[in-house]
């Protein structure tokens, strides 16, 4: 027996909204999340209850986020240029958290330079925490393609973050451990 729409909404809303918000900012995330669930609600009766619903939802969301790719890339580039995160500008973020973000303009630049299809796969993996097979289902790709795109994206990210990134991550870990 599959879950009801309300159950899925309750279980998935925060994560899906957070995923969209990190990519596009809160305002656009409201729109994308609303439209994702609206499409899901409209097609709920057609959904095979034996199949997992998360890849399906993120597939819809990815399709909608794709319409905003230029905005996403511009926001990432703006963040990389200025060090001011456009997504967090409207949020109430503690100074402690802000201090731990020294690496992130570089990360934003690296994300901005990824190909769109590689960024989708990487962020579904890292932020939506979908597995390779789930990403494949979300984006209608062979699993091998997901693996190769993920591998390429991560390689590019590692290359861009480089040894400074590793030092910075170690520092962040230390900060987290002290908290």
């Amino acid at each position, binding site marked *: 027996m599959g879950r009801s729409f309300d159950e899925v909404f309750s279980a998935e809303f925060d994560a899906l909204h957070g995923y969209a918000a990190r990519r596009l900012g809160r305002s656009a995330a409201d729109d994308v*999340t609303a439209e994702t*669930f609206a499409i899901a609600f409209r097609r709920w009766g057609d959904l095979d209850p034996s199949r997992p619903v998360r890849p399906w939802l993120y597939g819809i969301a990815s399709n909608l986020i794709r319409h905003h*790719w230029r905005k996403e890339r511009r926001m990432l580039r703006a963040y990389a240029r200025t060090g001011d995160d456009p997504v967090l500008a409207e949020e109430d973020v503690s100074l402690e958290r802000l201090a731990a973000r020294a690496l992130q303009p570089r990360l934003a630049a690296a994300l901005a330079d990824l190909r769109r299809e590689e960024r989708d796969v990487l962020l579904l993996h890292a932020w939506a925490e979908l597995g390779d097979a789930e990403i494949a289902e979300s984006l209608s790709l062979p699993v091998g393609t997901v693996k190769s795109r993920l591998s390429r994206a991560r390689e590019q990210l590692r290359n861009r973050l480089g040894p400074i990134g590793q030092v910075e991550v170690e520092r962040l870990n230390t900060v987290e451990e002290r908290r």
Partner: protein
Amino acid sequence: MSTDDLHTLREFRAELPPPDEETRRRIYEHATREARGRRRRLPAVGLAAAAAAATVAVLLVSPWGGNTGLVQRALAAVGSGEVLHVVFTEQPGPPGWYGAVSLPSGKPLPDPILRREVWYDQSRGLEKSVFSLGNGNGFGESIETPQADYNSAGRITNAVTVDGNKVTPSVGPSASLEPALADFVDEYQSALASGQATRTGTGQVDGHDVTWLHIAADPAHYDPAMDVAIDSSTYAPVQVRTDDADPVQFDVSEIDTQAYDPSLFTPPPVTSPVSASTGAPTPIDATQAPGLLDGKAVWLGQSWNGYELVGVAQEQVTDSYSPDSGKQPVQSVAVVFTYADGSDMLEIAETAQCEFGLGLSCGGPYQPQDGVLFLHQPDSSSTTLDDGVYVAIRQNGGDADPVAVANALQSITR
């Protein structure tokens, strides 16, 4: 630390607090109201869009200040056809991504000049780009359409629509220009039309008398400020510089508008693989390598600078092409020489043809060349072409100078 990148990404992701209950309720109501009649957007967003449209309308009819003559001519120079056509040259980036050095001097070589020709039809959501080197040698083409994107590897599927259990490629967004050019095209025409471009002086660019226009940043749309040089006789833009912490400069050699021609936006032929796989290595004797690579192979000898040859292996590399192309997989042979100095490893991987599966860049500005070493920083790999053999030099630990490694390569005699 193979998870560093994911850890950093998740730090980036984890900072956002969840939306409040009011937002959650509003979105839930919007979603479930679909059954009673579809609305595309949340009310607040719809109002914002309407307000933005009204703002644009006001801007379009606003006076053009003191630049009227120049601005009118600059707008007219671009034209008003359906398809915007721009030819520009740029430096490849980002800096440090690839670096080229001359062999054997080890001196850095300048980045190659890249030429890009773009046809952009905003109303139909179409974009075509043709890439070439400064010498005119083409190396790539891409097409974006509302249905799909294509490049030399075939159709690129980014997203899907789901209808019940049937999953089909999505009807995607309109094509969008590469950001640097998009910033220019978007800002330039609208800034001219709205009177936001200000004349800041005159000068010369590549021997042409120009007038410089400054276009202020638009933080609301993340548009950087930019300076545009307008040819004083044709009024066409000839050079663009973004004015921010990460400046971009490119030269515009042609800009005009054209009539729509559907044949312009047909997908390019498939020439590049979409993936490559490598089979299990089979140990071989070093003297067998030339026979596997069209008669030529290079190595560092039995030892080099403290590194000892610890293995030679043959690997089967399979390039796979987009299923839509109907092209069959292509197999080739690679030979990998592995050297070790304690725990430091050095690999010389080589093929007779430029091989995507070896990590080589093929067909573009970074395709291995004789006498040039491309350094892929900072992952300690580098590539070159040595006596007709395509070579990737990979390091795991150690600090061997890749230029010294490349210069030490020698042919194997059978």
